[in-house]
């Protein structure tokens, strides 16, 4: 409980300052206004009729697809790049060229290539998550102590044994770091990608932009809090999963 005390004190101070009129509500809504806005998002929706739970489900669906694709492609490629120097040399220039381009810069071209809707959104999210997953996986392989590999060879381990019984377990900590970072970036990218061209009419980013259109800063901040809480929860789940499959730690 003690570790949340500073946060609680900050919220109390915020409410006090708002109640005393230091901040107009259109500049910084108070915590109570944000809680009321949260209730409105649950019961009325933003835009009216588009309830919060649907926005959350659509956003989770998009990020789930994009992140899964990033892991499905990024982890195997990262393992290969880490283990085979020729793979690393082959792919590294392309990756270093594409990686610095912000995912959001891809939005206009993604819409032209893939249209408005789930495909372009998943593509943008994939781009956000892919590089952290890939590079941390490769880094994990490269950081494995060569003595472990030599020891396995001494015990007549095949390449397949070395890959699955030494490399993969040894890289797991880095893989999970990459996944956590990738998920964070995916979540941030999702919200911005939903700012425009959301076909289904649902998504947390879309909800926030609509709240902006209708001049509801309380609902904007409520939406931001929801995004933060969901991101926190996802990261916690990833850490729990990591603990469960790394019993040696």
């Amino acid at each position, binding site marked *: 409980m003690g570790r949340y005390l500073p946060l609680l004190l900050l919220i109390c101070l915020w409410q006090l300052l708002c109640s005393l009129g230091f901040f107009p509500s259109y500049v910084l809504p108070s915590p109570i206004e944000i809680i009321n806005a949260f209730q409105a998002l649950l019961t009325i929706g933003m*835009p009216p009729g588009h309830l919060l739970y649907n926005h959350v489900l659509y956003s989770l669906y998009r990020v789930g697809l994009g992140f899964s694709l990033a892991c499905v492609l990024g982890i195997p490629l990262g393992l290969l790049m880490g283990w085979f120097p020729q793979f690393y040399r082959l792919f590294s220039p392309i990756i270093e060229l594409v990686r610095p381009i912000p995912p959001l810069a891809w939005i206009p071209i993604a819409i032209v290539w893939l*249209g408005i809707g789930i495909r372009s959104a998943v593509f943008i999210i994939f781009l956000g998550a892919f590089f952290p997953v890939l590079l941390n996986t490769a880094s994990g392989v490269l950081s494995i102590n060569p003595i472990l590999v030599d020891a396995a060879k001494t015990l007549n381990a095949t390449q397949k044994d070395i890959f699955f019984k030494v490399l993969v377990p040894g890289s797991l900590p880095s893989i999970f770091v990459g996944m956590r970072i990738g998920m964070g970036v995916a979540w941030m990218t999702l919200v911005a990608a939903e700012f425009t061209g959301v076909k289904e009419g649902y998504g947390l980013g879309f909800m926030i932009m*609509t709240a902006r259109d209708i001049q509801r800063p309380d609902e904007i901040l409520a939406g931001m809090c929801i995004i933060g809480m969901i991101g926190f929860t996802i990261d916690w789940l990833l850490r729990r999963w990591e603990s469960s499959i790394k019993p040696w730690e």
Partner: protein
Amino acid sequence: MKRVVQLLLAFWFCLILIERAYSQIPPDNPIRMAYLQNDIHHLPLWVALEKGFFNEQGIKVEIAGIFRSGPELMSAFSAGALDMAYVGEAPAVTAVANGTANVAILAQVNTEGSAIVIGKNSSITTISGLKGVQIAVPGFSTVQDLLLRKAVPQPSAASDGVKVIVMKPPEMIGALRTNQIDAFIAWEPYPAQSVSMGVGKILASSAEIWKNHPCCVLVVDRSFSKANAEKVERIMRAHNKSIDFIRAKPEQAIQVAIKYTGMDEQTISRAMRNVEYVSNVNIEGLKEYVKFLTGFGYIKLNNLQSFMEKIVY
């Protein structure tokens, strides 16, 4: 460490002194004005700038922002970054009703001037044919959003309902061309541009949806107007002169519009035929906007009359 702290304090103190010094100088600050990018409705502002109508009135105007939609522009008022602006009536009403901006409507800028555009090969021939289509609007609580809801009273998720998607007008033409959307509703000159580019055709002008509907207005920040009433009057004179100029010399007005939009003369001419420039505020139209916005749940008002007194200068 102690020295660093002393230096930081001294620097901070200097900044405060500089700020206080500047605040003592009686400023002749230009009026911070904004408008919407490529919105032909805001031609009176462009004409006033190009023909020197503000200078004639002894007023300096600086363009403090060019925005892609009305709600974005109203956020700038919330931030205290604007004194006046040309903007859609719907976002202005929404911002005032929801307490995020304290502006008043000085004058009308135009009535009508939007259109529903469908693909050039579309088989739809009437508004009632817009069933199950994906139609783009510039944003919720924009004039075009209200026009669409007036034209299609029940846009909904039902299988034959109209599916609304929010896009910025410059993106709508490309989306229509690649069949990402089936139609869009936007302010001129984007409907005219879609026709010029051979991408779309006009299904219905906004005049057919709602004759003489008010569209854009000239608004002023209330606190600015209290301190600068004389400047506000002069701006209105320049605005009225611009509107008279557009009516009297449309060919010259077209050239100004070409400069500010970068579009060709054919597109601009076509667009301007759909726009009616006026300066008297359409009060009944404004009331109807307020009722629409209240009905959609975008705003809540306790008293329509007191709101009207608040929002009209």
